[in-house]
């Protein structure tokens, strides 16, 4: 399960994974929502890099376009819009939920790790073809085998758009 030797790839992964993990921690530790959001942007950006290392180049770039470029900008927009009117910070007073939540979270981490010990053995290796993440291959699969889910997702997005417009408009 653990690597036998240190390779350059491992070092790169360690660096990226470390940044991603720290950024993830930052999301929940910064009291300021904008900094949380920035940490999340960093996390997503590094994740895109990790997708590249996994060979999924289209998904990596999509991750940047969708998450970093659109979703997180929306988050920032909303945070700033709400701040614009109400500059006071939300007070993050501690209560019993905080320590309990952390303990429970660590418990979950430990339990799942224990499961993973058994589940992931040595017989997993990077066995997919190298070009499995190119636009051609992904597109071909998406529009043949997964055409119906794609259509449904399209409908979902349309409904989402209409819904958010309805929510945002005062007068319809």
């Amino acid at each position, binding site marked *: 399960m653990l690597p036998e030797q240190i390779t350059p790839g491992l070092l790169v992964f360690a660096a990226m994974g470390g940044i991603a993990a720290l950024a993830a921690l930052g999301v929940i530790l910064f009291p300021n929502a904008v900094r949380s959001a920035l940490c999340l942007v960093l996390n997503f950006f590094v994740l895109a890099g990790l997708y590249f290392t996994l060979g999924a180049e289209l998904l990596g770039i999509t991750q940047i376009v969708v998450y970093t*470029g659109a979703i997180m900008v929306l988050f920032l927009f909303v945070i700033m819009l709400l701040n614009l009117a109400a500059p006071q910070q939300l007070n993050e007073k501690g209560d019993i939920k905080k320590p309990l939540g952390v303990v429970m979270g660590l418990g979950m981490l430990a339990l799942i790790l224990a499961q993973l010990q058994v589940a992931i053995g040595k017989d997993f290796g990077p066995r997919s073809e190298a070009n499995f993440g190119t636009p051609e291959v992904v597109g071909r699969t998406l529009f043949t085998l997964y055409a119906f889910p794609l259509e449904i997702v399209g409908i979902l997005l349309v409904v989402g758009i209409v819904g958010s417009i309805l929510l945002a*408009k005062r007068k319809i």
Partner: protein
Amino acid sequence: MRGILQILTEEWTTSLPGWVQALLRALLLVLPLLILVPGLIWLERRLLSWMQDRIGPNRVGPKGLLQPIADGVKLFFKEDITPSHIDRFIYFIAPAIALFPAFAIGGTLPWGPLYWLTPVADVNIGILYMLAISSLGVYGVVLAGYGSDNKYSLMGGLRASAQLISYELAMGMSLAAIVLATGSLKMTSIVYLQQQPLWDTVNILQNWFIFTPFGFISAVIFLICMVAETNRAPFDLPEAENELIAGYHTEYSSMKFAVFFMGEYAAMFVFSGVFAAIFLGGYNLLPIRWEVLSELAPSLAGFCRFMEWMNVNFSWLWFLGKCAFGICVYIWIRATLPRLRYDQLMSLGWRSLLPIAVTNFMLVALWMVVSRVYGPANGWISYFVGAIIFAIGYSNVTSASRRAKGDTLEQRGITMTDGGARRTIEVIK
């Protein structure tokens, strides 16, 4: 045809280690950008003053050519003011983020048919990469606006985030039409396809996308969107000086301001390059296929060979020329058009550009299907018939909605929230 440049550089470059090659390619992109930015500033000021019938910078150096250098020196030595009560980390990182995409976008631009020199990385997902990186540009502006702890800056940042997201969609859709037509996201193959016969029929001309109907529509939409994406007039609402002082960079001074400045001009340059590569035939000088012409007119064969030679060896020059043309268009637009109102900006992006881009995309699909089955002529006929149907439907819908809702903001149900006090903004027609 091998040119001097090829003979001189190919063997030497390809013999270097891979990472050195990559570094070399990156330098070949970034250095010209950095060098050209002061020139651009001079060009803009001179051109703008010429269009506005005044003289412009003319004191430092011949024709004021050294003015940008003087400005740079001034900016370097100015006092660097940092406001108190700010979010320091965000405040400092914002200019860097603003500069980053401008340089990163250029990574897939091909400057010539010399694969070992350019582009920096000819990735499979070139256009997507370009869109992804350009979508990161908004962070610089938004964070600058937020980090400055200034109401006007914050509003500028807010405006920028909404504006950039809105126009990115239309931009992506307009490029999607081109991607559909070429079948590839690679910049080099898009340029290569533009060297094919025009409209699949005219053998002697190159198929620059701006000459095809769908490409022309895409080009117009892309042009508008790229102006909006670079926050240039008439879409410079994030830094509208008469409403927001200077918007997101109100609180920046000295070098940090210079970095924003540089980022903006670099972005203009790079977007012009993207426009040139996708719509204007890339590094080709003229939309003429010389080898075909020389077969048709043997008397011109020598001239054709010469032109081909020019094309190969000075491709970077033609490409730069097209970029310069794009920048002149930027300046021309800035000199001509007044700034849009915010709701006009949104309405233009969402209600005009996006539907047109999407329709164009679908029409390209129609054209491709029909022309593959029934030949190019029928393909074009179906494209135009579809376009006319859409135009009629679109004009009907818009006129109906205008009749139903009226033209003022209030009648259209738009109100603007502004710092707790809510008021409906009336528009005087």
